[in-house]
């Protein structure tokens, strides 16, 4: 069988995927498959993390990621506490790290944190005696999203190595893309980033870290024969900042439409990390087409986050 008996890595935190080897990613995906089976049982809860406490600290709005971690923690029988930045002592001027120490003193084992500033999860990891999972920090990283994307791709294709993955949209501002690139390149996918120049950033920037990635403004060429097409959310504020001439122009050149998708491989899948602007970066027709795995991504997110929580628990 040749499978490792224990989780490789010996890690305490999940801050990004830059320190995940292929072996550890594979272990997370395998554990997530087992978690998916748990979620299909009569009783969708196992006692693995009974007695542990997970604290959700979301300083940025998020519905799906926060609830996904919450459902994942509950399915493992952990207690989950939602810390809301609004109305908390952080607003009264208590520093973030004081708050973290308070949460630690109250008995938390895991902090799941989202923050608009890149690097905050690292800071918290230094101050906190338990484990930290980064649920999105600024433009920096969003490792659990990247892992659920890898899981979704692997579930469809059976492997990731050699697949052609096209990521289209606001790549330069995207933490999903940065963590995604670590994961996808580690697993051997061939990635192309597509965006208008203002949202693409210089090719040299991407190549400094991921020399194997292709960078282009031409979606029609990039999508040719692609196995995976991932659209990113276009934030309204990008247009307000003058980075786009108009939404109509963006839609014409970069929206995933049925005609464009027809140029991808016949077995291609369409992904989106959500929340979608249907009608902008993707047409409603494509979003609900059989090639779309957007809904599966949400369900897979719970299984993958269960796997992460479980893997960290072995180290406490």
């Amino acid at each position, binding site marked *: 069988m040749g499978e490792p008996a224990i989780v490789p890595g010996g890690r305490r935190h999940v801050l990004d995927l830059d320190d995940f080897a292929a072996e550890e990613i594979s272990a997370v995906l395998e554990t997530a498959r087992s978690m998916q089976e748990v979620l299909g*049982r009569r009783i969708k809860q196992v006692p693995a993390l009974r007695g542990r406490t997970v604290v959700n600290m979301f300083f940025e709005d998020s519905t799906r990621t926060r609830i996904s971690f919450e459902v994942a923690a509950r399915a493992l029988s952990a207690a989950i506490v939602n810390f809301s930045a609004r109305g908390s002592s952080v607003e009264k001027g208590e520093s973030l790290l004081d708050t973290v120490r308070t949460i630690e003193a109250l008995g938390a084992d895991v902090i799941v944190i989202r923050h608009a500033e890149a690097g905050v999860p690292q800071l918290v990891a230094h101050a906190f005696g338990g484990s930290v999972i980064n649920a999105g920090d600024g433009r920096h990283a969003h490792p659990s999203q990247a892992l659920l994307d890898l899981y979704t791709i692997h579930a469809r294709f059976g492997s990731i190595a050699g697949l052609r993955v096209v990521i289209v949209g606001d790549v330069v501002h995207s933490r999903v893309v940065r963590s995604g690139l670590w994961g996808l390149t580690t697993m051997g996918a061939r990635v192309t980033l597509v965006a208008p120049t203002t949202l693409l950033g210089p090719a040299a920037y991407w190549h400094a870290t991921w020399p194997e990635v292709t960078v282009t403004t031409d979606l029609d060429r990039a999508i040719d024969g692609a196995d995976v097409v991932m659209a990113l959310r276009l934030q309204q504020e990008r247009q307000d900042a003058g980075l786009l001439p108009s939404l109509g122009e963006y839609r014409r050149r970069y929206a995933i439409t049925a005609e464009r998708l027809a140029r991808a491989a016949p077995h291609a899948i369409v992904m989106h990390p959500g929340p979608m602007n249907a009608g902008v970066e993707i047409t409603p027709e494509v979003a609900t087409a059989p090639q779309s795995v957007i809904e599966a991504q949400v369900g897979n997110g719970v299984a993958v986050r269960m796997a992460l929580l479980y893997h960290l628990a072995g180290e406490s």
Partner: protein
Amino acid sequence: MHTRQLLDREDIRRAVTRIAHQIVERNAGVTGLVLVGIRRRGLPLAHRIAAALLDIERHSVPVGVLDITLYRDDLGLRGPAPIVHATSIPVDITDRTVILVDDVLYTGRTTRAALDALSDIGRPARVQLAVLIDRGHRELPIHADYIGRVIPTARDERIETLLVEIDHAEDRVVLVRSEA
């Protein structure tokens, strides 16, 4: 380190055959039975018992596999988390007779975890336990219904089961005693 062979390939084959006969007798046939092997070495044993039952009764019994990692009571106490492998039972276990299969029965904690897992998956009419070796030292009120061999052991001894399907070595059961 002392090792002593307890069972050879033929002993294991005879034990599996005997367990299969006892299962048939106890359940008056094989109707409504499901064999569920506890990972890892319970699974090949469950397949072997199913093959023996097919020989005896000319009727095939479904075989599933159970991973009890998520039901262990020692997560985090023994270092890194064990990998969770798939649980897969091909039929609905509700109202059936489930025969749990494992290689060694020791403290009973693995069986306890397996019983908890089964009750989350369905509600069997009854659960029976088949093991190749019962080595004693129970820490919970659990006993086996079918036993290949009872082997009294000391706590500092270890039982190693080798099965060709997993270990790619000839079937045998060995007692290992580390010198203090």
